[in-house]
């Protein structure tokens, strides 16, 4: 692509500004980790809008009991696509995209370990999304729910092409995700700057490492299960068809063996971003890095052994139920350690409430609530009541929006100046935060109550005599309040790209290596490979009389 620009400039008058096709060609063929990161983020934002519109339609239908706005089949297709989109084509890509952009920068590397594999990873994820959404063009989106319980996915019950698109799309995007995971591990293990031992990586890098480990362990079982579904549907296999000796129950185990680590794949990088933002905006070093690091590993390991807590109502044996309840409750301990360490980092600091910190504090305040309702769900008998009810819907949206989304916004606001060289507009960012927070609380707060009042999830309508109307109406209003906050964000992201204040190399006065290079960073990131002696190399540079490396790891 370099030559394309050169050719162009010699033969036309547009010597300084090549036509847009050159940029397009550049982005499509790129193997630069920063451009691939941006592609991931842009793809995720487009799907975020699509998934958001689906959510609004769902909420619209549920505003009145027995409403007749969206027909049942379409409603079921909408919630299936909403869940699938948000998990596979928004959550994971945006986190992998941020990781792609910042992991090499933060460890002082010039690119990912395998740039071509990196490109393959993005395009496979993108193709997967296209295949799943092709089902809309084919006139039959999947309506099996995002966890697609067998035997609903068998040909007998889903005759159309939707389920095939769903399974094939996730299979293909899974290949991309695994490629990304492998690449992160190789990059973090092999390409750290001289002096940056594995115990000195920035915390975001550490969480990406463990997320990648989970990706490599959890996605292959899903891929295998999806292949089994496709074999059932097209080659007459009977893995999940009980009529012919298959097991519907087996699918649940296979899916959740992927599905539960998946939610930690979505939350660990969020923890990582929070652990970058809180120290910088409190002007303090991260409290208890070693314990935080150990807690991350703890979560990564424990989360591989908790999957059956999604299945407390299937009639498991008592020892299984108690075992999985205990392991699920155990996850709350490392998560709690993180929460306390973040608070301790803020304690005694000088807190600056810029937009990244605002989102980080929103994360702390909301995520703790989602974590605690998680404790309720892990207590088996409570789960018998609230499982598959709106209480669960409220719980996981609280952890995914309050957790992953708020943290991602913290990260995006924190790193946008590095990616573009321009600052985001703080006023718009603050409006966005408060509108999102209020809308979020109004949407998902009432869902806890409708769940407790007996409303199951995934129903396209409900009888008028259940006392659920008011809670659904508040939730729908909340969703409508949330919507403009995303518009503000997109306006801010697009507008600031051209009209934002110039950022300079290190606008937040932060301490990790990505802030040592220009904004946006040049191709290959660093002119000289930096030498690192502590977890905050830029602090050491700013405070040569009192560098971190004198104190790290010696506290008692």
């Amino acid at each position: 692509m370099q030559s394309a620009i050169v050719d162009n400039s010699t033969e036309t008058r547009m010597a300084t500004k090549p036509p847009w096709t050159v940029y397009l060609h550049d982005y499509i063929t790129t193997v630069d980790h920063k451009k691939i990161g941006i592609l991931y983020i842009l793809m995720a934002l487009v799907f975020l809008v699509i998934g958001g519109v689906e959510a609004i339609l769902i909420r619209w239908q549920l505003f009145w009991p027995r409403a007749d706005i969206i027909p049942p089949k379409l409603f079921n297709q909408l919630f299936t696509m909403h869940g699938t989109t948000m998990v596979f084509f928004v959550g994971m890509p945006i986190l992998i995209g941020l990781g792609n952009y910042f992991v090499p920068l933060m460890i002082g590397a010039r690119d990912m370990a395998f740039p071509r594999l990196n490109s393959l990873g993005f395009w496979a994820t993108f193709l997967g999304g296209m295949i799943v959404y092709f089902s809309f063009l084919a006139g039959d989106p999947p309506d099996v729910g995002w966890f697609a319980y067998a035997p609903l996915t068998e040909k007998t019950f889903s005759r159309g092409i939707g389920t095939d698109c769903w399974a094939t799309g996730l299979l293909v995007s899974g290949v991309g995700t695994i490629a990304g995971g492998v690449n992160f591990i190789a990059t973090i293990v092999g390409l750290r700057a001289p002096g940056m031992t594995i115990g000195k990586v920035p915390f975001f890098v550490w969480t990406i490492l463990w997320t990648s480990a989970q990706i490599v362990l959890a996605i292959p079982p899903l891929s295998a299960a999806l292949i089994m579904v496709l074999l059932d549907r097209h080659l007459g296999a009977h893995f999940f068809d009980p009529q012919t000796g298959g097991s519907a129950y087996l699918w649940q185990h296979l899916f959740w063996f992927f599905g539960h680590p998946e939610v930690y794949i979505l939350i660990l990088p969020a923890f990582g971003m929070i652990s970058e933002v809180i120290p910088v905006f409190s002007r303090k070093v991260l409290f208890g890095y070693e314990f935080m690091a150990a807690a991350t590993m703890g979560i990564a390991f424990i989360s591989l052994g908790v999957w059956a807590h999604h299945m407390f109502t299937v009639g498991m044996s008592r020892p299984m139920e108690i075992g999985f309840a205990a392991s699920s409750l155990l996850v709350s301990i490392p998560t709690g350690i993180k929460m306390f360490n973040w608070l301790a980092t803020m304690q005694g600091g000088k807190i600056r409430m810029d937009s990244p910190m605002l989102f980080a504090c929103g994360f702390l305040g909301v995520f703790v609530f989602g974590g605690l309702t998680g404790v309720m769900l892990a207590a088996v008998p409570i789960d018998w009541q609230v499982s598959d009810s709106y209480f669960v819907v409220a719980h996981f949206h609280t952890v995914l929006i309050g957790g992953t989304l708020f943290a991602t916004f913290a990260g995006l606001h924190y790193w946008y100046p590095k990616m573009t060289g321009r600052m985001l507009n703080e006023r718009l960012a603050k409006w966005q935060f408060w509108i999102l927070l209020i809308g979020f609380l109004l949407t998902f707060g009432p869902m806890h109550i409708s769940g407790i009042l007996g409303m199951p999830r995934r129903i396209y309508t409900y009888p008028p005599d259940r006392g659920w109307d008011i809670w659904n109406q508040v939730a729908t209003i909340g969703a409508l309040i949330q919507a403009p906050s995303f518009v503000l964000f997109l306006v801010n992201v697009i507008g600031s790209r051209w009209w934002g204040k110039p950022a300079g190399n290190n606008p937040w006065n932060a301490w990790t290596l990505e802030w040592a290079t220009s904004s946006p960073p040049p191709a290959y990131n660093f002119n000289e490979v930096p030498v690192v002696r502590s977890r905050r190399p830029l602090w050491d540079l700013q405070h040569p009389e009192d560098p971190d490396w004198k104190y790290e790891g010696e506290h008692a």
Partner: protein
Amino acid sequence: MRRVSSQQDAEEFRLSLRMEANRRSRRLAQGMELGVKSLSNHLLGCLAITALLLDPSNLWGSESPSIFDPATPQATSIRSLFWLVILITGVIFVGVEGLLAFFLYEYSRKKSDPNAEPAQVYGSIPIEVAWTAVPTLIVFVIVMIVVRIEYEVKADAETIPANSIPLRIRVVGHQWWWEYNYFEYDGKPLSMTTANELVIPVGEEGVARPIMLTLESADVCHSYWVPRLSGKTDLIPGRVNELWFETKLAGDYVGQCAEYCGTQHANMLLHVRAVSPDEFEKWLSDQASPAADDPAVAEGKKVFLSETCVNCHTVQGTPAKGRVGPDLTHLMSRHTIAAGMISNTPENLRDWIHDPQDIKPGCLMPAFRLESSKMDLLVKYLGSLK
């Protein structure tokens, strides 16, 4: 703050910082202890308000099937566990949010010299150990309580009270209705089938009447959930699950399928009618008798038997033996049709047979669109199935 002249001074300064940090954290711990006590008082007040809100009879006068309004010992056990966990997590929640708000206020940059960096505290092993150990203890306690409640609630020979008269029913989930086979009551075998409305006897002082459900599915996964009676249990094809509860409170209990099962998952409603033992036994003997055979509706019966109705529906004592749809032998004893969606009136029945897709789009019963005279006869015949 961090400006120090020599190496040695730096060490001393570092030491003093650490001591200050320790002092602070100790003060913090004491403060939290006091705070928790007064908070727990406040929290009880908040809980009372929440309880008022969650009790549907106080609120809208509706019939919410609230899990906080249990009618069986099983659902009551779960409610008490829920309150306990809400209390424990509530204290943690208020503590964390309070601390967050306090820190944001106390350490706001505006309050101090904005240029100097604050003291850097890298961590503290004793503090980390403390906030690992305390949650571990809490988790341990919750697990113990969970085990206890688990034994209280789940089906098990020894949890079923002695001196009880069990009613055993096989529940089969279908897309999108419920089949009930009553097969044993008071030790005596039964053989009768009904659909969508479960009628059960209440227990009395000294005599429990546990309802033992065997859960199976004819097609995809479903889940049986009547919140005021018990937690949910799935109906999974190829597996047999069990669920039991008992109640002393007569009344109507509603619920619905809680595992997504396809297009009309939303309208797979559950109705349970708990009645006195006498009333139940009368109902049982009515149900066990063959279908009414009223000569006045013989014409309608002919329509019923000559149309494809019989492929899917059963009417005991006639050649209609289909098992794909609900058993219609005593259709008129049911209050609703279409799995609880609409009330069982002749007009509704007529509309339903004319085109079920209009009422319940996607359901598996085709539209009949009979000519009006035939429809009159058919509805009259069905109306005779008392």
